[in-house]
């Protein structure tokens, strides 16, 4: 992406806010993303943060654009440094073109003014004059919105709404802070220090602005989820919190379990009694759930598992991102049993695949994973509203008759699922190998029949697999493969390369693999796989399924997702 244009010619601006935890960077992100959306700008926002409550260095990137944007970029057009240490923290991303807004009293001589575009802005001085230094982040909100010439009444109205639960004085001071910051932007423009001319978009008022956690949650509700049990763990907790917030209104039971073991066993119990349950967790938490996963398989209980990945092993980097738990999801649980793994790369897919997960889990009585990661979960952008008009929640349960047997041997492997108290029959399920009625058995012929019955469902799952999506040139020589959250950055990188022999193949279902995978690969002269892990786990899975070894790999595992520029450059070097 060309990046040497002056700001006033750019259609896509990247603003980065950098400060300590507890300094209100999150509030600024919340306010700015909503205000820009209200003012008809396309926005994307993502954050990287440390695993602590106060201090450290955290940053949020907000891209503001005249056309839709949904991926992380490396370049910083405007940096708001709210604390000392921003230069060190972001040194790889600050260029001579970056405009740095900071305050001498705070950052001191951190930035060499002879080498960078430094503008001194007295955020805290203004805040202190209003009454307290804590308003400095809201002064920054005023300055940024002012630079984009967003109507001040819109900004003030939203800020007032945001602080409406606070005292009258606090609301008044925040409004004063916004206004002061806004006026400051005016003086910067008048002195021609910064000039911005981003076109507004039309129709954005119908779009929705949300993050991955919210998209998964909305998908769960659309899938009929009425029970969630989980143990808090970054970055998966947002789903539990969202459902808990809306639980009473929507008739959902949202329970914080004592541990992940309890969480998954509760969810399986809930399905047994007729609920549609899910768990949400991350690597270490999921590791504790693996015996429960195996239980679901043996009971032939549906279960939906949202596994939001973060870097491991063990505690790893708790607040950062990685795609390294594919093999964990794929092979977790003792014994042999079918499963489905979805890996959404967009908010729309996070919604629709989570909804679909509940239906497939219920229909086939199998575990279904939604494999996301911190990057997708914590990133926001504006998207078309999710389509819910065609969705039906079909509960695949039967009213039992007096002679009902839970594990009736059927041709396709699916035994009609009854629940206790619905019908005249009894429902017995057992983690031991069991007979047709669900009671413990050591009849070894029956054992073989039960294994075969459970494994027959593999065929049905293959028939429901979502094909990978091809974007770019139909007649490609170079084929780029990606899965899950790397998708949006990959799309933008491929677009930047603007080649007539290049296509991108996006897998939103990573297991089972769709049968067309091999055909797509065989058509290419050159294949490149993009993964946010160190060992190309998806590449290995493709090789296992197709025999094709993808030699070109773009891998990243430092805890951050791919920058668009980085992908563009690396792809360029690998194209035939």
């Amino acid at each position, binding site marked *: 992406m060309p990046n040497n244009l002056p700001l006033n010619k750019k259609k896509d601006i990247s603003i980065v806010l950098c400060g300590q935890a507890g300094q209100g960077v999150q509030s600024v992100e919340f306010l700015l993303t*909503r205000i820009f*959306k*209200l003012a008809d700008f396309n926005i994307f926002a993502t954050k990287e943060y440390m695993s602590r409550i106060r201090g450290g260095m955290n940053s949020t990137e907000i891209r503001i654009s005249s056309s839709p944007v949904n991926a992380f970029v490396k370049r910083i057009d405007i940096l708001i440094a709210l604390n000392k240490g921003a230069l060190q923290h972001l040194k790889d991303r600050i260029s001579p073109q970056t405009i740095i807004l900071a305050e001498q009293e705070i950052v001191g001589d951190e930035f060499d003014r002879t080498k960078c575009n430094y503008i001194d802005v007295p955020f805290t001085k203004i805040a202190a004059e209003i009454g307290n230094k804590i308003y400095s982040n809201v002064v920054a909100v005023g300055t940024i919105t002012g630079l984009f010439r967003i109507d001040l009444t*819109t900004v003030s*109205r939203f800020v007032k*709404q945001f602080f409406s639960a606070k005292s009258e004085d606090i609301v008044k001071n925040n409004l004063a802070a916004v206004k002061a910051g806004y006026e400051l932007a005016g003086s910067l423009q008048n002195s021609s220090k910064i000039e911005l001319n981003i076109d507004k978009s039309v129709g954005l008022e*119908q*779009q*929705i*602005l949300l993050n991955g956690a*919210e998209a998964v949650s*909305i998908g769960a*509700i*659309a899938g*009929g989820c*009425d*029970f969630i*049990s989980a143990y808090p763990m970054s970055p998966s907790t947002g789903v539990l919190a969202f459902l808990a917030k*809306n*639980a*009473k*209104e*929507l*008739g*959902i039971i949202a*329970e914080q379990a004592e*541990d992940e*073991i*309890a969480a998954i*066993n*509760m*969810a*399986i*119990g*809930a399905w*047994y*009694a*007729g*609920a*549609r349950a899910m768990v949400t967790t991350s690597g270490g938490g999921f590791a504790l759930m693996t*015996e*429960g996963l195996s*239980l679901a398989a043996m*009971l032939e209980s549906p279960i939906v598992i949202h596994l939001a990945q973060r870097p491991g092993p063990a505690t790893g980097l708790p607040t950062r991102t990685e795609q390294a738990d594919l093999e964990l999801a794929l092979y977790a649980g003792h014994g042999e049993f079918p499963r489905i793994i979805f890996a959404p790369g967009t908010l729309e897919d996070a919604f629709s695949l989570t909804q679909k997960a509940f239906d497939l889990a219920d229909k086939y009585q199998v575990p279904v994973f939604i494999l996301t990661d911190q990057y997708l979960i914590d990133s926001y952008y504006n998207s078309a*509203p*999710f389509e*819910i008009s065609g*969705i039906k*929640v079909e509960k695949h349960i039967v009213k039992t008759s007096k002679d009902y047997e839970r594990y009736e041997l059927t041709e396709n492997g699916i035994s009609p699922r009854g*629940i*206790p*108290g619905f019908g*005249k*029959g*009894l*429902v*017995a*399920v*057992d983690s031991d190998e069991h007979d047709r009625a669900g009671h*413990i058995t050591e009849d070894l012929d029956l054992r073989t029949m039960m294994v075969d019955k459970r494994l027959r469902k593999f065929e049905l799952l293959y028939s429901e697999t979502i094909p990978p999506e091809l974007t770019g040139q139909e007649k490609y020589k170079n084929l780029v493969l990606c899965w899950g959250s790397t998708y949006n950055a990959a799309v933008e990188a491929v677009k930047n390369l603007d080649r007539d022999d290049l296509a991108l193949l996006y897998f939103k279902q990573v297991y089972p693999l769709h049968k067309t995978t091999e055909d797509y690969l065989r058509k290419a002269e050159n294949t490149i796989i993009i993964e946010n892990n160190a060992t190309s786990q998806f590449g290995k899975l493709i090789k296992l399924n197709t025999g094709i070894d993808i030699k070109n790999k773009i891998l990243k595992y430092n805890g951050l997702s791919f920058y668009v520029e980085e992908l563009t450059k690396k792809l360029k070097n690998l194209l035939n």
Partner: protein
Amino acid sequence: MKGENFDIGNIDIAWCPGCGNFPILKILKQTLTELEIDPINLVLVSGIGQAAKIPHYFRTNVFNGLHGRALPPATAIKAANPALTVIAESGDGDMYGEGGNHFLHTIRRNPDITNIVHNNMVYGLTKGQASPTSQRGFKTPVQVNGVFLEPFNPLAVALALDASFVARAFSGHAEQTKEILKKAIAHKGYALVDILQPCASFNKLNTYQWFNENTYYLQGHDVYDRSLAFNKALENEKLGLGIFYMNPKKTTFEQNIGIYEQDQRPLYERRTSFEKLSELIDKFKVAG
């Protein structure tokens, strides 16, 4: 008697001759019959172990889950359909050892379920190792010099967490145990019934005779006095039997989750409100 018969017919029972599980099976069947509970509306939830096989010998709904994990699904089953009677039943190793964390937190959660623990103070199915409730000095193939860990006191732990019903029974006393179980099942909220039982194969210390000689029934005991109950639970010279404590004032988990206040239907009868979902999605449009 007009109650249902819970017998399942001609089955192979996996317990040893003389096992304390047999009388518990018989007592519980009689209890449920006398309470006129319909097998269709009862769920027996268990973990793993010899005691945990008990649901398979009942004609009712069965959830035989993982070792130590009976209480979480039992809680969820009751929450998803409060019309069901839910009993979580397993042995001392399962409930107090492997499932110890769930034992603590299920008491705090207070679902309206009955928790029956077959307490024979030994691991039977794995052939005689110490259980959390084994007494000091008890020698086993693993605890070769005798148990030196402090025995787990389930009643005292439950009382410390203000469990809403706490009782101890002895499998050798059918009538008294039946009366305790009846009250436990009728109780609204979490009810612990720790049932002392001999293990004929692996516990040569805590035998029928030992239990007869080392237990007594609480007399003139105020079941609403938690401190008194706690004192009684700490006694280890002789073990008290009967209901130690009841707290009828606690609200249940099903009441506290709030979704049954306006609508009594179990979850399986409900459908997602797409109207409300649509309103929820609209909130993301950001109104200024």
